[in-house]
């Protein structure tokens, strides 16, 4: 991949924001190279059913939406490379990217790396990863046919993935630190599984330890708000406690991050470094919705076109809404 060429646009990531941007830029004949270290489609691709993306009356499988976005972007000439951007150098005229495939230089850069699931950090989580501790229900749920599961979290992902896991598990205990924060429609669906005894909700429980042996996980220890320890017998644990931005590769760059690691942008979706833009879940103030990410991708693409044509007007930085 290392070459002397200066690309017109490099996009880091290949989720909905990145692919939407690529659809727009390639249709404008802007040569566009994308780097994806994980799954094309991002977290959307590992979501079972997406019910709130406009245009799909019956919902759409995350994998199908991702494939459709990829095909559409590639139809117009987007070049998707499977590789990782390790660092960026903004000291030169054009940003330079250090990637697993060598160095790449680009006139404009769009960061759309999205987020990954947060870790609890409790003892046992790392030790039993993939041997009883999981973050992807659509990947690993099938290993728990007729077994007991614990899900940690109370947001949209935790509830939606718990509902998906009922296809396999005999029973699911959901441990929620405060209260269920999933959307009303998901909560109504959840209630049917509570009513038929498939799911039990435990409010006010924070995980303290994931316990196992050579055979895998057998217990989760939780703590009540009063400090009392409770034990939950299980065959496996799925963790969905929120999202953390994929911005480690920017830590030593001049791109400003907030204290959570999200990227600060102005009204043009431009970061604190000229010519470097950000869109989607990785951006400070993002709403963590696929539809929003796609919209931001399109906006970023149009602003990048203006930038490459030398007619992007500076936008005042603005304070955006609260972080998740």
């Amino acid at each position: 991949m290392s070459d002397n060429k200066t690309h017109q646009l490099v996009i880091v990531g290949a989720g909905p924001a990145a692919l939407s941007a690529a659809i727009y830029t390639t249709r404008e004949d802007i040569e566009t190279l994308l780097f994806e270290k994980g799954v094309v489609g991002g977290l959307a691709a590992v979501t079972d059913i997406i019910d709130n993306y406009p245009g799909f009356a019956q919902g759409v499988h995350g994998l199908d939406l991702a494939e459709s976005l990829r095909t559409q972007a590639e139809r117009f000439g987007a070049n998707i490379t499977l590789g990782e951007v390790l660092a960026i150098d903004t000291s030169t005229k054009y940003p330079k990217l250090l990637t697993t495939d060598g160095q790449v230089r680009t006139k404009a850069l769009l960061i759309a790396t999205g987020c990954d699931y947060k870790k609890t950090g409790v003892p046992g989580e790392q030790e039993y990863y993939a041997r009883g501790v999981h973050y992807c229900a659509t990947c690993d749920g099938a290993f728990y046919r007729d077994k007991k599961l614990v899900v940690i979290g109370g947001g949209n992902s935790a509830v939606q993935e718990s509902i998906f896991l009922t296809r396999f598990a005999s029973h699911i205990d959901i441990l929620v630190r405060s209260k269920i924060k999933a959307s009303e429609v998901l909560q109504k669906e959840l209630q049917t599984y509570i009513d038929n005894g498939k799911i039990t909700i435990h409010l006010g429980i924070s995980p303290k330890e994931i316990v196992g042996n050579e055979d895998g996980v057998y217990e989760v220890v939780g703590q009540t708000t009063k400090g009392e320890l409770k034990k939950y017998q299980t065959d496996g644990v799925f963790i969905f406690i929120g999202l953390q931005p994929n911005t480690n590769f920017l830590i030593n760059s001049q791109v400003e991050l907030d204290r959570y690691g999200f990227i600060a942008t102005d009204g043009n979706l431009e970061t604190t470094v000229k010519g470097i833009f950000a869109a989607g879940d990785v951006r400070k103030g993002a709403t963590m919705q696929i539809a929003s990410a796609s919209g931001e991708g399109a906006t970023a693409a149009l602003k990048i076109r203006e930038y490459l044509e030398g007619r992007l007007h500076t936008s005042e930085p603005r304070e955006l809404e609260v972080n998740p």
Partner: protein
Amino acid sequence: MVKNITIFTTNTCGYCQMVKKYLTAKGMGYDEVNLDQHPHRRAEAQNISGAMTVPITVVTKTDDTKEVIVGYNLSKLVPAVN
């Protein structure tokens, strides 16, 4: 040298698609064991990898040694198949 590659997958696993896409892009053939279609082979995948996850990619070399890659992990997959 690679003799053959087997990937354990499920229908809904996005990371499995990525492993298959990577190998296809490199012009490499593979056998796929879909655990939704062949649930009785789940224990086999678990025994080979020690993990309860997919994708599990088993790369068998010409000297019959095997390399097992858990998940979609390019930093392990790329050297294993090249």
